[in-house]
């Protein structure tokens, strides 16, 4: 199998009447199904200790990534926290490069240096998975600052969890982004919990979009299980940003089906709650829409499923067969300066 097994986001997102095209729906289905199957596999591989360290799965939240891919151009910039496998997958990073990164192999998208929490792919403008809660929020504003400075017309979409909004960095960044009208879209993926802490236990303010209003930033809640709603919200925010009107704060209401990371007994929530959200499953929703609209048959969707399965299997084989980075790589990518004099006792 070849490296061609990557997703290609559609270029004809809407038709002349402004309706989503078949390509768009099919992309949403395929990308979200790929994210889902890829991560289910990653979860299994973690159990087999092929993947180590912290590994945070995005299962349940797929629409938050897929809907934004279609709403933005391929020149726009992305930055996120550590729950970061799905965004590059949706943007077209090969499953191979992401799986190899999870394995810590030299062929990974961060050469095995980052691992699960630190995916980076400059080819698709994915500026990283970041491990310190909230740190990416001012960075996202800064990426947007550079776009504005260079008058590119590009925007930055900056993802964070509901836990991150309790960091001072979030508030400082929102204030400056709004004051300076930076072209940034702040996205809170509100999955209800920061580790074991529900949003209700972290603050009086549980409608998180309201936090943006303190800075007079256009802010709204969005159904994060509905890929179309995500698309519409991001598209509108991008339009505002490109028009020079500055940032938007979107609160995507979503849910993670799995634990915070792979070692979470999940005693803080009930099985019933998890099952209730699974009824709103974003992949199932778009699948139903496709069938209802007659955009594809069951057989065609099954063919996509088979293709996705092949992509995932291929990525595992690729990761298995790839080498670990050479130990000398520990001293590369620390400085740009090629002959930096490290202390070598």
């Amino acid at each position, binding site marked *: 199998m070849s490296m061609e097994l990557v997703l290609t986001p559609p270029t004809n997102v809407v038709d002349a009447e402004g309706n989503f095209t078949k390509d768009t729906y099919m992309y949403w289905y395929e990308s979200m199904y790929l994210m889902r199957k890829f991560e289910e596999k990653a979860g299994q591989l973690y159990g087999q200790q092929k993947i180590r360290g912290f590994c945070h799965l995005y299962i349940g939240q797929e629409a938050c990534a897929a809907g934004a891919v279609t709403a933005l151009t391929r020149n726009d910039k992305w930055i996120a926290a550590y729950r970061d496998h799905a965004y590059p997958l949706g943007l077209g990073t090969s499953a191979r490069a992401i799986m190899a990164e999870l394995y810590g192999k030299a062929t990974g998208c961060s050469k095995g240096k*980052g691992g699960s929490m630190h995916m980076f792919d400059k080819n698709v403008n994915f500026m990283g998975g970041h491990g310190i809660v909230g740190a990416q929020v001012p960075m996202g504003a800064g990426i947007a600052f550079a776009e504005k400075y260079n008058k590119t017309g590009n925007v930055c979409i900056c993802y964070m969890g509901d836990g991150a909004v309790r960091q001072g960095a979030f508030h400082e960044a929102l204030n400056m982004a709004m004051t300076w009208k930076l072209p940034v879209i702040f996205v809170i993926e509100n999955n209800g919990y920061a580790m074991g802490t529900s949003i209700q236990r972290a603050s009086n303010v549980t409608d998180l979009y309201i936090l943006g209003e303190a800075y007079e930033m256009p802010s709204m809640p969005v159904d994060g299980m509905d890929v179309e709603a995500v698309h519409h919200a991001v598209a509108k925010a991008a339009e505002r940003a490109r028009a020079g009107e500055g940032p938007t704060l979107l609160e995507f209401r979503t849910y993670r089906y799995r634990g915070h990371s792979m070692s979470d007994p999940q005693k803080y929530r009930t099985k019933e709650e998890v099952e209730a959200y699974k009824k709103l499953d974003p992949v199932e929703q778009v699948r139903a829409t496709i069938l209802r609209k007659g955009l594809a048959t069951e057989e065609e969707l099954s063919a996509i499923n088979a293709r996705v399965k092949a992509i995932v299997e291929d990525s595992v084989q690729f990761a298995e067969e790839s080498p670990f980075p050479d130990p000398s790589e520990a001293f590369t990518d620390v400085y740009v300066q090629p002959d930096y004099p490290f202390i070598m006792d």
Partner: protein
Amino acid sequence: MRVIQFREALREAMSEEMRRDPRVFLMGEEVAEYNGAYKVSQGMLDEFGPERVIDTPISELGFAGIGVGAAINGLRPIIEFMTFNFSLVAIDQVVNSAAKILPMSAGQYGCPIVFRGPTGNAGQLGAQHSQNFENWYANTPGLKVVVPSNPYDAKGLLKSAIRDDDPVIFMESELMYSDKGEVPESEYLIPIGQAKTVREGTDVTLVSFGKMMKVALNAADEAAKEGISAEVIDLRTVRPIDYAAVVNSVKKTNRLVIIEEAWPLASISTDVGFQVQRMAFDYLDAPVLRVNSMDVPLNYAPTLIEAVLPNVKRTMQAIKSVLYRN
């Protein structure tokens, strides 16, 4: 004697001090309802209730500062950082507030607070989650910095830290929480600032602290197989540092190797090496050597971790080198 886990030793220290002194409370992320991210505070919410075992939002700067404010106003907080990597979000309150209140107020206000949590690498966690800041905090006058290596020391030192009238940084390790060791049931305290000679020897002094004590002790075993008698000193506290203990040992062995997980520049090993050459220059038969993490971030891949962390092999090379046995 009774054998308990490192995490249990810490929990006992906190619980005993909370029973003894109503001013002591525990605050941090996931410390209460989740029973601690690493189960150090398991059961403490049940015993002490939500007024004294307090879950916070992910707001390190805020809750570190709330801790400092409470401390200068008469309480004795224990502030848990989920790991010390995240303490960097809060370091302003630690360095600019906690450590400065006493001098700025000319002694009118003290800051009896403990900031505790795990430090250093814990496996393949990537560059942002695998850092040692013992030397950063130790560099700051006004702070004390304790880095225990075993359950017995952890309990006795944490109790002392909680009773201390000055701010104490107390650094643990995810990789040690399940370690078991003998801890007596009866109460004891270990004074802050005293090193411990954990193994007597005559040929070379090995100095370390925290999780790296295992490397030092394993290297001492390895050295013994080659007929080298290593004396091993556990600093236990890296501010203040018990220089006398190191110097006295070096006067006997005439050789020193320091093992430390932090990066080499401006590290604890740098300082110990400097003080030893100053105080025991005439006793040294070889240059002081050290085994630190390599001068680079700790990446995810296992091959890169292997290449960077201190280990027995590198320690043995250093030991042989100071003994001119290469």
